[in-house]
């Protein structure tokens, strides 16, 4: 593929319309369309009347019986009712916010300790943690369920928060960040008599805030989209999250196409917030991959 560098010899001209490049653009555009089209189709279908969703006529824009363009909100109304949106949205927000805040705080705390505080056994414990990253999450499902039931927290919002309150990977990332900080600032603060906690809170933490933002966003999104654990650990509709609630709507639609209208509207409702957040905070999300990317 072409070099990304300005070439040494200036006489080499660029041929922007070489057939290879045209092909490349074509492939990329087609691929991008395959990513955008389903969402467009989803939104369009969610505004159609149920009869039109089931009709054989293929139309991108919602139309009524006479062929005029008409957007319908009834699917959204039924979806909101089915999903019990107000309570479920509240549940999701509680879970996501609490988990994200606790996660950021505790992971940063641990990462800071690993990076900047000397104590015996630090390296061993750290290596142990890294080794444990190997264990895949799904293996933990059953035993975590048993533990949750023993602790009597199953079928509550807590069971959705507690088992994920820390993440070794995030601790690792935070440690990286803290390692990169300037020692002098810290030393100055120690001279002034500040304890480690004050240094952590008032100096170190603000300095790594870009990473905190990125981790905050990814953790929030992960919690928002988590389905399997919610399926396994909760049964009462009182503690359903958006993902879980949507899941039961989809199960209802699996053998019963008449639920499709609600299912589609429900999907839009559930996925829209994160997509909006993504586009608003695009910069942070995309850059975060760079920060946390694989080191050569």
């Amino acid at each position, binding site marked *: 593929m072409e070099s990304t560098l300005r070439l040494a010899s200036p006489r080499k001209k660029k041929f922007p319309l070489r057939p290879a490049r045209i092909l490349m653009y074509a492939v990329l555009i087609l691929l991008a369309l395959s990513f955008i089209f389903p969402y467009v189709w989803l939104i369009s279908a969610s505004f159609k009347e149920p009869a039109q969703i089931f009709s054989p006529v293929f139309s991108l824009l919602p139309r009524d019986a006479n062929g005029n363009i008409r957007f319908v909100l009834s699917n959204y109304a039924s979806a909101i009712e089915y999903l019990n949106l107000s309570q479920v949205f509240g549940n999701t927000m509680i879970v996501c916010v609490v988990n994200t805040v606790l996660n950021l705080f505790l992971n940063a705390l641990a990462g800071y300790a690993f990076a900047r505080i000397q104590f015996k056994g630090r390296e061993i414990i750290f290596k142990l943690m890294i080794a444990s990253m190997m264990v895949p999450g799904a293996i933990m499902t059953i035993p975590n369920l048993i533990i949750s039931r023993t602790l*009597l927290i*199953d*079928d*509550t919002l807590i069971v959705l*928060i507690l088992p994920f309150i820390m993440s070794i990977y995030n601790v690792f990332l935070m440690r990286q960040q803290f390692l990169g900080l300037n020692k002098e600032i810290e030393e100055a603060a120690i001279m002034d008599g500040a304890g480690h906690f004050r240094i952590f809170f008032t100096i170190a933490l603000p300095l790594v805030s870009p990473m905190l933002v990125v981790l905050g966003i990814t953790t929030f999104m992960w919690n928002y989209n988590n389905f399997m654990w919610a399926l396994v650990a909760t049964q009462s509709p009182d503690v359903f999250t958006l993902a879980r609630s949507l899941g039961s709507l989809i199960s209802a639609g699996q053998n019963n*196409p008449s639920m499709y209208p609600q299912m589609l509207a429900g999907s839009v409702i559930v996925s829209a917030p994160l997509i909006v957040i993504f586009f608003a905070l695009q910069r942070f999300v995309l850059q975060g991959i760079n920060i946390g990317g694989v080191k050569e």
Partner: protein
Amino acid sequence: MSKLFTSRVVFLAFVLLSLVGCQDNQGDDVVSFWAYQPSTQAHQNAFRSLIADFTEETGIKVKLNLVVKDSFNMALNSALSGRSKPDMSYLDQPLIADYASDGTIEDITSMFADFSSVQEDDFFATAFQTNEYDGKLYGLPLNVTASVLFYNKDMVESAPETWDEWLACREDLPQGKSLFDGIGNGGYAGWYFQAFLANCGGSLLNDQQTAVAFNDAHGVEAAQMIRNLYGSDQTSITNRGTSDAFGNGLVAFKLGSSSDIDRFDINFPTLDYDVALVPSKTGATSYSNMGGENIVVYSHSNLKDKCASLIEYLLREDSLDKLSDFTGNFPAIREFATSEDARLNVIIAQMENSVPRPVVPKWIRVNDDYLGPALGDKILSDENPRDIQTSLDDAAAAANQLLF
């Protein structure tokens, strides 16, 4: 430690504790009742107001949890082993044996004896029997249904009454149409199979209930009949793979029950169809498979008398009518199961000769994992149909090992 630190710790602790607290105030005097979720929003709301009326009348608080039928059994199983166990719930007929045998559901023989408004004779006999295990009563039937024959009047003049007549209808089919819609996969296939089995003289278990009998000559005959109805030509395969094939006018016959009547009336208003008794092999008595919901009370519950009140309330005529409306089935109390709709009367007539599934523990696993797949996936597979006798024998061997 710094003040900031401690204040934050206190705050976090408060948040966590309040979350715990939030969930525990469900109250110890609220009856937790799980039921099948009706498929339309309107029915779901009607269910809730039915329960609300009960609370208004008796002051007993009820927490209604409507769960999609397909996920119901698993969700129930999960809840029964966790913290939030229901006090009472709907229960699929075949599960009565399982939960009765390990003491999960309560023996309600005496509870029922105390009911002032209903007695055993009021119910459809076979429906009542599905609640009896080991000589005791473990539940009550709420609604019942049976499968009947749906046929498209544009393609079929009059309903066939024997198997031969049924197969002969294929000759008159218009181009591009096929004879029979699929009987589904997994558990559903096993369920519908019973109708065919009964109609040619077979049964799922042998008379002494010591082994399965669905792989005998009758069983093979029944499976063969379904396969013949299916047809292996491309048109039939195509039509069967289409969602709502019968509603869309692609197939001539289908087995279904009362909920299907509602569905077709609403979603396919132009479809000209009718219902009839399921053809028996020789034109003798028409048998069909029975389905329906039973209601049970759980042994762990502290609110059994409140549950009893709710059950008696649900067995009243107007309650039963509404409940039946939601699932499309019929009230299990014979007197209430009447209708002006001729089609529904066909189903009521069919119910007189419908056979329930065996009341043995683990039958549901046999149905869902051995018998159902043997039919739905092996014998009736479009891509790779397997030998009927062998498939049934394999399923029977597995079933015998599991059950006996």
